């Protein structure tokens, strides 16, 4: 499956999900849900633009005769994925502990489940991107 198709499917799936949620929210009169779909759409637009620039650069490289991936880039992606997985596990554990402590010790409300899930996903994504960027620069193996 080529990069454009993969990006297109991902974007379409997320857009369909968010649009469906927004329509349901309007139907149910849930104004708070509508409020967070707007920033999610904003993040989606940024993701699409960044991805389009990356795919354009990669297509230019492939046209010049370079491979899309080699053993070094595959190794980099595997390591970045590993660190993203580890980071998300520890991050989720940390949030879980905070959620246990917040109501009892600090008399604060419990964390919203939807926000926690979104934060864990976003954090894994950020760690993956940062790790990938770091290994690209340092190239240590």
């Amino acid at each position: 499956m080529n990069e454009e198709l993969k990006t297109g499917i991902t974007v379409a799936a997320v857009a369909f999900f968010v649009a469906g949620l927004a329509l349901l929210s309007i139907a149910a009169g849930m104004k708070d849900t509508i409020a967070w779909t707007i920033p999610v759409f904003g993040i989606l637009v940024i993701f699409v633009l960044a991805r389009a620039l990356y795919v354009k650069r990669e297509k230019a490289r492939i046209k010049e005769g370079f491979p899309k991936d080699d053993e070094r880039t595959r190794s980099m992606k595997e390591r970045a994925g590993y660190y993203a997985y580890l980071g998300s596990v520890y991050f989720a554990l940390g949030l879980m502990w905070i959620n246990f402590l917040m109501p009892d010790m600090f008399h604060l409300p419990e964390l919203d489940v939807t926000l926690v899930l979104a934060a864990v996903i976003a954090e894994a994504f950020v760690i993956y991107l940062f790790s990938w960027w770091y290994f690209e620069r340092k190239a240590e193996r």
Partner: protein
Amino acid sequence: MKTRIKEFRARYDLTQEDLAKKVGVRRETILFLEKGKYNPSLQLAHDVAKALKASIDELFLFEE
């Protein structure tokens, strides 16, 4: 790990891009190999040595 890839590349007047295309890897991989910042697999080391008409021992200098 030190390498003599740059020296051998210069003998044949190859750019990093030329060598990368010959070996079938990205240009950055050749760059990091030359700097000794990436340890290649045996297959890649063999492919680079073959492209530069040298042996692996000549190209890659292992420190004790």
